[in-house]
């Protein structure tokens, strides 16, 4: 019922594809069984159904799940810290043969298929905004997780970067 009252940072914009309101839980744990999935390797993510567990640091993970997903059973209780950060970031989806070209205009990590593919994630800068990037398929499709306050800037930047190859 309250869903109607939510407003995402890029609501009303038709020039970028936003996936709003994803559930996101920041997990801090050194117990590899806590997440209920094999712990992903550094800068990789593991998926269980529609949920993804992103490696962010040696004891830090981000669980990303669909809007409304109750992730309580996935994350268990023995973690050192669980913090709901669902409203902290929104998600922008980039997909298509030129997605890599657009990201390469503002991101210094290597996105070539030999270096970065589905299942990879990274925390880096895109233009002047800190983002979490993950590649979800080899079309390729990328999800860019960006803090809400930076989202309008980043959307403007992406639209500008997409104007030429």
């Amino acid at each position, binding site marked *: *019922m*309250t869903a109607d*009252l*939510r*407003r*995402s*940072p890029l609501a009303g914009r038709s020039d970028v594809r936003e996936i*709003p*309101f994803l559930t996101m839980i*920041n997990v*801090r744990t050194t117990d590899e069984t806590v997440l209920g999935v094999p712990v992903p390797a550094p800068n990789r993510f593991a998926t269980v159904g529609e949920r993804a567990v992103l490696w962010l640091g040696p004891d830090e993970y981000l669980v990303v799940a669909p809007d409304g997903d109750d992730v309580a059973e996935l994350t268990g209780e023995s973690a*050192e*810290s*669980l*913090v*709901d*950060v*669902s*409203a*902290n*970031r929104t998600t922008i989806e980039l997909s298509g043969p030129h997605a890599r*070209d657009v990201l*390469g*205009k*503002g*991101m*210094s*990590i*290597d996105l*070539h298929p*030999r*270096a970065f593919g589905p299942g990879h994630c990274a925390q880096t800068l895109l*233009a*002047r*905004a800190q983002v979490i990037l993950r590649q979800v398929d080899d079309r390729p499709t990328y999800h860019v997780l960006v*803090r*809400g*306050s*930076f989202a*309008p*800037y*980043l959307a*403007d*930047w992406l639209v*500008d*970067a997409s104007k*030429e190859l």
Partner: protein
Amino acid sequence: MRLPEGGRIDRSAPLTFTVDGVTRTGYRGDTVASALLADGVVQVGASAYRHRPRGIVDAGVAEPNALLQVGPEPMRPATTVELTDGLVARTLSGRGRLLEPNDERYDHKHVHCDVLVVGAGPAGLAAALEAGRTGARVILADEQTEPGGSALSTPDRWPWLAEVLAGLSGFAETRVLSRASVFGYYDHNYLTIAQRHAGPIGAGGRLWHVRAGRVVLATGAHERPLVFAGNDRPGVMLASAVRTYLNRYAVRLGTRAVVCTTNDSAYATALDLLASGVDVLVADARQDCALAGAVRAAGGDVRFGTVVVGTEGEAAVTAALLGAPVGGGPVELFHCDLVAVSGGWNPAVHLHSQAGGTLRHDEAISAFVPDRSRQANASAGSANGELDPNLPLWTIPSPGGWDDHFVDLQRDATVADVLRATDAGLRSAEHVKRFTTIGTAHDQGKTAGVTTLGVIAEALGAGPPGPTTYRPPYTPVPFAMLAGRDRGALHDPARVTSIHDWHVARGAEFENVGQWKRPWYYPRPGEDMTTAVLRECAAARTGVGMQDASTLGKIEIVGLDAAEFLNRMYTNAFKKLAVGAARYGLMCKADGMVFDDGVVLRLAEDRFLATTTTGNAAAVLDWFEEWLQTEWPDLRVRLTSVTEQWATIAVVGPKSRAVVEKLAPVDLSFMTFTDTTLANGIPARIARISFSGELAFEINVATWHGLAVWEAVHGTGEEFGITPYGTETMHVLRAEKGYPIVGQDTDGTVTPIDLGMEWIVSKRKAFVGSRSLRRPDTARPDRKQLVGLLPVDPSDLLPEGAQLVTADSSLEPPVPMLGHVTSSYHSAALGRTFALALVRSGRDRLGQVLHAPLAGKTIAATVVEPVFYDPEGTRRDG
């Protein structure tokens, strides 16, 4: 003149262009320089300082004379500007300036590769072909409009060139960049490339950021001129350039030429000139050359032990004076309209050197070559010194002295200038460079550098001094390209809250706080800032106001030792804070100086939410992490930034309870909070916290609910006259209560005691900074302390930053300063102006009148306690 056939120009595509107001025609494939030369124009802008006539010298990036203003851009060598239809340019005399903003579209691109090959001449092409064949990710970058390098000037190699390019195009992972100058080589094999897009002026370009596994430097070599009297006369050109114009652009530069050389390479020029019908005399400084027979067989003449010792002519050369390289012998006048010179070749070691590689002097070619690399790179071809042997001939004397023997054409610097430097006692090439300015012009000494070293060596009677340091950029890069898309609205992110659109719609003026855009005040029609702020302040003091406080930094602190951790970080105690309660906290750096402040909520036994100032959010998180990770890794505490998880709405004023109760029936005592659900079903955390001294609440909701809740509060508060207010009103309200703002009333040299906040500094525990607060210096009675100021004239507004002196102080410098005004406002509640200030021994001065001497007037103000409004704190509970 243009030859009827040959060259790599496209004769089916004539192009019209205008230089210095004269419209001419060239072809696609021309540069502006080749098109001018084809039209018989060799002379360009006069020299910058001595105003001597100058001509085109080179066919590439080393060109020192032919500088153009093209579109918005100054200082572009005509030899590197691709001819396009309708191009308009103006020749410059050595200097230019950006005439208008450069609005060309430049962007940036990051790429990684296994091998970056710099330079698409024969060596670079061969390297790219080998690397590309393996399937490696290869980038081949070349500054010219088409790959080929020196092969473009050698028609025999064109079939090979076409074959190689076809091969490269078959490699999926090989990328060939043209018009792309690799200008910077930094650590970790990170290189930058300035690429101009094909097309008319204004087409823009791209700055490439390349991270390469290995780098092949196939950058070629630059031909050196010879230093004789009048060597700057138009018509004196580099021999390789003459050949390039002839073969690549089908431009024959004269009818009777002297080719003066110290090595074999110029013989190719002589032979090609002869084949095109030019009379040629080769003046070879050496005693022999195996190629002489070929020249003579083609109808040319060769004289050994002979060089050009001078030139004659006005706007262009009309004769060369031939003599012996050592001078003193007989001189012969030889009429000619072209002097092609080769004093040897300098490997283009710029990038090798930029990368930290060392150079050594190679006697055989009398030039510097790469020695050891410091990064994963290798030099190849002529860049690696694979060049013809050369007879070093740094200067050619003549009876008239050295004042017309030019070393650096762009700086108008001669051998006489170098000798003045060495006569003054300078020996280091770096010192001579600074004395003469040689090598500091637009071309960065590409033709002058090594020659100058030779001249210095001769003058000092020593071996060649080491080369000067090469720094980026190899060739000039427009600032607009460096800026890329980081300009205008994209220059820096504007961070906005979830309620931003509402503020904009209500006409708010915004203040930049870090990258955040925060509403500053909400002027109504006809209101200026002062009026609007007085109105907003009055609403908060007498009715109800609301503010978007979402930008406050927020950190969730979780773990069994969370209370212990906070107890160590803040000056006051946190262990006994009850769940459901809030506490204001102050923290210091290790030096005991105030660093940040904020309110901490205890959400659970092992869970806290700390707020920070807007500007310090990231710094506080870093500060916390630093202590946790480096000093106290044993503490079971984890930190998570939740700044953007929560939107925060402050509801402030005597009627705030009435508004909040309509949204959620909460009954909160001061400094407590509760998690609840608002009437509209939205979960919220409501706290009773006041930064104004008034009854006040903070409503925290998930950011995606921020706008809905703001609108709900505003709608609910309408019947109470709720007034949105901005940061300025917030500042006034807190200043009336004497609450300092970290960073405004403090500057990193202020202790909590200086602020009069002894009450918040625990004496019973250790915290970060506690030891420093026991130093004698932090207990000095004459430290600057926070006090209030009331201007004697209640309408005088002290400027923030104004210096304060005693009333009887002389204003003759040096004036002993007591301190300065940190905050100053009009107060609706007080009906007058007031200020906060940091004043030496301030608390001992209560009641004193101090002066703020300003330009044209002095404001007198009385020192008072810094709490101006409701000192008893009676309004806090409404």
